[in-house]
């Protein structure tokens, strides 16, 4: 995965670069809006991470808008210290695909980037999802493990769907809150963990090899390996 980071803080840039390199990805850094726009327009990236407040009073959103106007469809994640709901809505309206508020953990950033890139590659309508011997039919809303049907509540189905769409990728608790419950706040409890355990009991019940793994300090992963 080749990523462009438009960010004027050297420290943040170094931190992201190091983290991405360890996960086997490459990162280009632009320290200002002009370089960022130039690189984004001339190189082929899998994703762009855009800071909002850039040197010279440039708002990263104007760069996002410029890229979208020129027909560039690369997935963009906004990284910003502006965290109010209105700011987030404004960010998504400008054409960005996701919004992450500073301070952030690297795990959260990586998980969201991988999810964005996956989503961009798999655009189009799938009607079935499969991870190892776990299958999900999105039309008839049926789930089966090794041919044995599993009954799920609607919300459990949604939870499993998000995990299956991001199979072999880390999905953070915040991502689950946003995508499954549409909660854009932190309920400060382990409710998500309880929901996931409940789901795990249903899909991994008496299976030889559990699929749903907890990734420490990050989130969850539905893994076929």
């Amino acid at each position: 995965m080749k990523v462009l980071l438009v960010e004027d803080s050297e420290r943040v840039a170094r931190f992201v670069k190091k983290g991405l390199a360890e996960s086997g990805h490459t990162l280009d850094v632009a320290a200002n809006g002009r370089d960022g726009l130039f690189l984004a327009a001339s190189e082929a990236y899998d994703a762009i991470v855009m800071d909002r407040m850039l040197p010279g009073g440039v708002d990263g959103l104007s760069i996002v808008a410029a890229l979208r106007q020129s027909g560039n469809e690369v997935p963009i994640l906004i990284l910003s210290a502006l965290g109010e709901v209105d700011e987030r809505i404004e960010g998504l309206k400008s054409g960005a695909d996701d919004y992450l508020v500073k301070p952030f953990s690297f795990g959260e950033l990586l998980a969201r980037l991988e999810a964005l890139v996956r989503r961009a590659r798999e655009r189009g309508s799938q009607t079935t999802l499969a991870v190892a011997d776990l299958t999900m039919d999105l039309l008839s809303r049926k789930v089966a493990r090794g041919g044995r049907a599993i009954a799920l509540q609607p919300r459990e189905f949604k939870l499993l769907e998000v995990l299956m769409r991001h199979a072999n990728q880390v999905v953070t608790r915040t991502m689950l809150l946003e995508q499954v419950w549409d909660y854009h706040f932190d309920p400060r409890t382990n409710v998500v963990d309880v929901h996931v355990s409940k789901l795990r009991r249903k899909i991994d019940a008496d299976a030889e090899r559990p699929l749903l793994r907890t990734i420490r300090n990050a989130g969850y992963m539905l893994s076929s390996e």
Partner: protein
Amino acid sequence: MRPLLRFSAANLALGYVAASLAALAVFATPLWFAWRSTIDARRGELLQEDERRLVDIFQARGADGLAAALDARVARSRTGGNYYVLADRDRRRMAGNLSAWPDGVPEQPGRYRVTVLANGEPRAAIAIHELLPGGYRLLVAGDDTSFQRMERLFWYGLAATAAAILALGAFAAWAIRREFLREVQRIQRTAAAIVAGDLSRRVESRGVADDLELLSRTVNGMLDRIQALVDGVRNVSNAIAHDLRTPLAELRSRLEELAMSRLPAGEAAAELESAVADVDRVIAIFNALLRLAEIDSGMRRSGFARVDLGRVAAETAEFYEPVAEEKGIALSCRAQAGLEVMGDSLLLAQALGNLVDNAIKYAPAESAVEIRGVRRAGLVELSVADRGPGIPDAEKPRVVERFYRGDRSRGAVPGMGLGLALVAGTARLHGGAFELSDHSPGLVATLRLPRADPAH
């Protein structure tokens, strides 16, 4: 004393004076012309008639006959205030009550304004000058002096009226200015006191329901709001001082200790992880404080939309259900239909979530937690009831304060002490109220919000 003209109300009064004078002029001018032309025309007709009779006499009896008739009239004082002169072709006076043919009468016959000398006095007059056969000239003139007196009176009257308007206007300007200035100074004094730092001052009410009172009330409302905001800022700074310092201090010592001790890599990594968890705790408090400040500022109102609280309640119940189940708590949700409010769905969901989360935390195992939504007159009432230890009455008002943590929450139950403050702030933002009451045993937390108008 400030210059009168620099005061807005006085300017207004003077403007009215100018307008009144203009109106007076507009009224007087046509009146003057109408009067003048009517009277002039009528007097002219009378003179013309008189003159025609004299011409008839001339035609019947000749110049001498007319002279005799005129002299007879003058002798009998039957002139009716008119002046008559008959003159020959050299304009020598032949008869009449003027001593000579007046100067300044044009050569051509016609009607003129002239000045005649009557008994040695100059009098203004309207004169008809007639040329008779044989070069005789006849002048019949009507005295205009009395009319001129009336004209003078008209102008005097007009001038006096204008002067009265001016005087009244000036007085009104002065009086209005004085009254207005007193009112403005009342508000100004309050504003000055506030500028000087006394935020508790308010504009006194005069007990009269007029426009200035309305202004005073608006100003007072604004001051209440400003004071609330200032207090809010002060509270937040206090809260930050107290409650962010502690975890930051812990974090600092943890990191310093780590730097000093030569720990094996594995242990060092574990310590660092704990440090990151500390930072996350600080960030969570920070976010909650920002959210509270955002709520208190009232900014979120601009994004209000119709929210079905019944649905919010059902979703919240569904979200917390597995947690309750784990503790063996029966979480139920009963909501009537049509629990609609105008509000911010995110904040309302978070507020209800906090209440349910608290209830589950404090409820004993194998008890019930109930979410209820009911419609009251003009209100939507959303309550969460648990069978936990409850809150003593004395503590109830304090638990909604920032960072207050009641006795019952010290110890095992983790929290930041911001949850209920956020709920109370959300209720306030929506123009509603938040109340804690006894469920004996247990606690009922109730949100009362104004119901939205029925869907259009």
